[in-house]
């Protein structure tokens, strides 16, 4: 897995690419938590490059959501393919997250929080 990062306005886009599995999710957790600890409050997680996500990756999403739950902090997910969507749905995660189709919409949503 590789992790892309891009600062756009007041938001940070984090884009993991590859498998988000029980091994690689540790890297994603480190990056996401260190950015939140570093003061990032508006986060977009762009999952367009994710081949699949297992529960270890869901754990990272949940931790980030818990940390960014109070406005003006916000977490928005985007770029969700069919497989990732299925896993989010089976885990009952879809209702818990703000989800947008693409990165632009996600940035607009996160900026309005």
């Amino acid at each position, binding site marked *: 897995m590789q992790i892309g990062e891009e600062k756009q306005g007041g938001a940070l886009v984090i884009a993991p690419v590859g*498998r988000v*599995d*029980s*091994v690689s999710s540790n890297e994603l957790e480190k990056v996401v938590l260190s950015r939140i600890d570093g003061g990032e409050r508006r986060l977009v997680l762009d999952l367009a490059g994710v*081949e*699949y*996500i*297992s*529960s*270890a990756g*869901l*754990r990272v999403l*949940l*931790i980030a*959501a*818990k940390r960014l*739950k109070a406005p003006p902090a916000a977490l928005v997910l985007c770029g969700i393919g*069919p*497989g990732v*969507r*299925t*896993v*989010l*749905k*089976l*885990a*009952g995660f879809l209702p*818990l997250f703000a989800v947008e189709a693409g990165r632009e919409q996600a940035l607009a949503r996160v900026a309005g929080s």
Partner: protein
Amino acid sequence: MPGTDAGIRTVLDALEAFAAGHGLSKAVTWPVEVSLDEVLANVVRHGLLGRGEAATVEVELRLDLDPEPPVCEVVVTDDGPEFDPLAVPEPDTSLGIEDRPIGGLGIALVRRLMDETEYERREGKNRLRLRRRLVAMEG
């Protein structure tokens, strides 16, 4: 494989190469990959009690290309203490963010992604068999 993260990575790489080598797309193989990751993570992190390199986990991958769609079967055997992951209670996936425990979703996902799951304790080993018809899965 050894009971380590490196072992998990090796097996997931092997599954990916095995499936791709038979012309199967990610669209149909990802549920097996996710499930194998869940099962191996459980075994390595909990079942083997940190024995790591000293522990051995056997993974058998079988692909039956004759039926349409093809069928994939995975058998994971470990020599840890007796533990039936399928006996773990289902997590409540209707809870909100506040109340969601961090973790505990892995085996629930495996159950929901696979067509068949079967556990048995045999000759001092845990044996978990997973089976799925390789069709695309839409939410």
